[in-house]
Every structure is written in structure tokens, then in C-alpha cells.
């Protein structure tokens, strides 16, 4: 029997609404009791007492981008692993564990190959050395 009952997801919605109510309620309650004396200086970005120079929205180091790319590969692969992992025990019980194990292993091997590739390319090093022999 497999019924798909959306009732079980009701707490998720309730909790998210509670979070919004909590945040909104606290801000609203504060609105009546907190002081409000805005000034130009108060609303500038904090730079240890100096006047801020330029915007913070400037070009940023590209290595964060590389980390994000590696993350996406790994995250998608591990997300795809979840269904296989959850049925592995069941398949093992009915004697088909070997098939699933081989598919799990080959899947992980792809992941490992990707990791080794990134490692060799030096993408896992935070501080990259640019003095390479040609």
C-alpha cells in the first residue's frame, strides 16, 4: 500500500510560516519601543572608523567560483546516490546485493576520478602556485 498523503508535509509549511511570524513579530514589537535617530554617518558601512572607500561589490577572487563548481558536481552525484543507498539493504536481502554494489562502486569511481582530476589540476589548493615548469 502506498498512499501519497501531503498531510505529512504540513508541518514544513507551518514551521516556515512560524519563522516568518517570529521574525515579523519581533521586528514589529521592536518598532514601538526602540529609538530611531538615523544619521548619515550611522548608516555608512563599517570600516573601522575610516570613511568607506568604494563599493564592496567588486570583482572577487575566482577560486570561490572553482570551489562552487566542484561542489555542484559532488552534490548532484551524492544526491543521485540517495535512492540507491536507501534500497541497497532491501536488494541485499533478496540476494541482488552484488548488482547494486557494482552500480554503487562504479558510480563512486566516477566521483573519485573527478576528485583526482581536480586534485591533479591543483584546483583543491587554496593558494595556487603559478610557477609551473612548461
Amino acid at each position, binding site marked *: 500500500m502506498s498512499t501519497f498523503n501531503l498531510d505529512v508535509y504540513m*508541518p514544513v509549511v507551518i514551521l516556515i510560516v512560524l519563522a516568518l511570524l*517570529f521574525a515579523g513579530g519581533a521586528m514589529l514589537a521592536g518598532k514601538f519601543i526602540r529609538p530611531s535617530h538615523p544619521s548619515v554617518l550611522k548608516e555608512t558601512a*563599517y570600516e573601522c572608523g575610516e570613511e568607506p572607500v568604494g563599493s564592496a561589490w567588486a570583482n572577487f577572487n575566482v577560486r570561490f567560483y572553482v570551489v562552487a563548481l566542484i561542489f555542484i558536481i559532488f552534490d548532484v552525484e551524492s544526491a543521485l546516490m540517495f535512492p540507491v*543507498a536507501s534500497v541497497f539493504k532491501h536488494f541485499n536481502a533478496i540476494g541482488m546485493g552484488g548488482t547494486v554494489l557494482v552500480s554503487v*562502486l562504479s558510480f563512486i569511481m566516477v566521483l*573519485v576520478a573527478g576528485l583526482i582530476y581536480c586534485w591533479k589540476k591543483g584546483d583543491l589548493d587554496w593558494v595556487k602556485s603559478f610557477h609551473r615548469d612548461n
Partner: protein
Amino acid sequence: MDSTVVTYFSQSNEFHSIVMWLSKIFGDHAGGVLTFTIFAVVALVIVGVMATVGGLGTYAERKISADMQMRQGPNRVGPYGILQFLADGVKMILKEDIVPSNADKFTFILAPILCLMGVFATLAVVPFSSGFMLSDLNVGVFYLVGMASLVGVGIFLGGYASNSKWSMLGGMRGASQIISYEIPVTLTILTIVLIAGGLSFGTIIHGQSGMPHKWFLFHNPFAFISFFIYFISSLAETNRAPFDLPEAESELVSGYHTEYSGMRFGFFALAEYIEVFVVCGVAAALFLGGYNFPFGHSIELAMVQKIGMNSMVAQNISQLLELTAFFTKTLALYYVVIWVRWTLPRLRVDQLMTLCWKYLTPIALFNLVGCAVWMYAFDGKPIYSLIFETAVTAAHH
């Protein structure tokens, strides 16, 4: 069907009489209305308890750190200063709300709320006890991993929207750190999913038992290593020291929440402390037997059969015992988190990335493979039963 807290309440006779009574007003929707009411009330209670736990977490943090450094810690508000968190809350509400004029205002306001939403949403599957789990979703752990990463989005947006260099650096570091450490966390959770054969917390916890030798921690050597990888990576995911680089106060002033003041900062802090509790609770559920307590079901049976107690009363008592077991395990881990914070110095950014990608991720991958092979080779038997069987065969010879 997935069991929820409503399933637990519907076992009682009162539930059906209330449904009967409500059906006079709401007709066919009576069951739905009651379901919603129970969910809402229990969610409210859990959020209230968790907010208090988060508040007491800040108090515990200061008191324990004071203890470790031979100081007094907070001791003015209430007995032993235990009401300090309420005073802090009042102070935060009374603080002026400052939004920097150069900031991206909409995102600036949205960021702490996103953090709070992500953490609150994870509470839906935290297994407090077999009855008082809000909803035992069949995709439990997967849902938890997904919702927990919403916090990372909030932290990055907070850093970006402030338009301050400190915040930007903190937010960027936070984003890269949280996504990096999500990989070892996911891989170690997969190890446990392999052993348990299901994604829901119910399946995972019922695969274990109250006695330590039946915990997944001691199921096989790979699971044992996995626990430590999960715990270390969780520290990094929740931005706890020694991985608190996004808010490293000695280099980045206050990191991603430099520009946040008053209650908006409070949301970030509350989200962080609740997330630490959730992460510890999940560690307890995955590895330490969750809400199981020693001789779990036999105590309930004994109460019914030997003492002749009403079965519903016995069930409620065992729920209380389960809650106690869960909170004991989780708070013990919480203590370790605080202990680690006041013991270890902060890592450098390059060390942080090296630890994640060159140590934890390969070890976690190896663990996953090892665990899969173990499950296949030994037919999914834990190590204690293998030792037991070997001993029995040896005794026969």
C-alpha cells in the same frame, strides 16, 4: 504512510471523540482541521522549546567558557545568571534598527529571515521521540540536508547585501565553507542510509537500539569513522569554532553580520544556536541510537504486564523516557561542541579547504565504499553479532 505526531495522538480514544465533536461544525473536514491544529500546536511548542534551548545555549556557552578560563561568567540576571538570555533578548529588541544606506535593502532584510526559516524547517523532522517527531518524512535525512543548506544562502546573502568589505569577505568565506563541508556531511549520511536501508529517521532509529553495542556508531569500523567526519563537518557547516572563519572576529570584525544590529543580528545568532542543536540531534539519531533508551520496549511491556498499567499511560511514560534519552545524548554532544570551541584555535582559510577536500572528502568516500562492501560481504550484520557468532563457533570446536 509516514507517521507523524498526529498518528501518535490518534491512538487515544479522545482523538476520535474530538473528531466526532468537530464534525458537527466542519462536516467532512473535521479530521483535517484537527490534524492542522495538532501540527500547529506541536510546532509552536517545539519552536518555543527550541528558542529557549538556543537562548540557554548562549548562556551555557558563556558559562562553560568562563569555567574553562577560571572566570565567573554571567551571574547577575536570575539565579546563577540563567536568565541572561532573556535580558539579551530584551536588549536586542530595544536596539535601534540600522540598515546601511548603501546596502541592498530587500536582501539585507531577507537574509536573517532565510536563516531562521531554514533552521525552523529542519525542526520538522528532528526525532525528539517516536511520538513527538513532527513528521517522519520518508525522505527525512535528504530533506534535512536540503533545508539546512538554506542557512548557507542566508549567510551569503547577509554578507553580500551589507555592501561592506568585512561582510562581503565573511559571506564569501561562509558560502564556500558551507558548501564544501556539505559534501562530507552528505557522504557520511549516505553511509548510515546504506546500513539502515531507508531515509526516514524512523527507519534509521528503529534499526538501532538503546544499548550502545547496537548503535550504528559501532555497526562497523567505517560507521565509527563516519561519526567523527560527520561531527567535524557539522561544526564547519554551523560555523562553529575552530571553523568560524565567516565571522572571525580577529580578522573580519564580525564577518557576515558586521552591519547587522539589534534583533536582525539576534535572528542570525538564534538560527546558529538552534542549528547546532539540530545538528547534534541528528548526530545522536544517526549514530548514537537516537531516542532509544536501554531496554526500551521491554520496560513498556513490563509496566503493562507486571504492574498492570494502562497501556496508553505506559506509552506516554516511555515517550518521556525517550525524550530524556534524546535530550541527554544531544546535550552531551552540544557540550562537546562548546568544549571544542574554547579549546582549539581557528584554522586558516587554506587549511580549512585542505581539510575538507583533501582529507574529509576522500576518507568519507572510502568509508562509503567500505560500508557498501561490508554490507554485501557480511550480509549487513553488525560487528558485535559477527564477534558473537565467531565466539559461538569457537566454543563448539
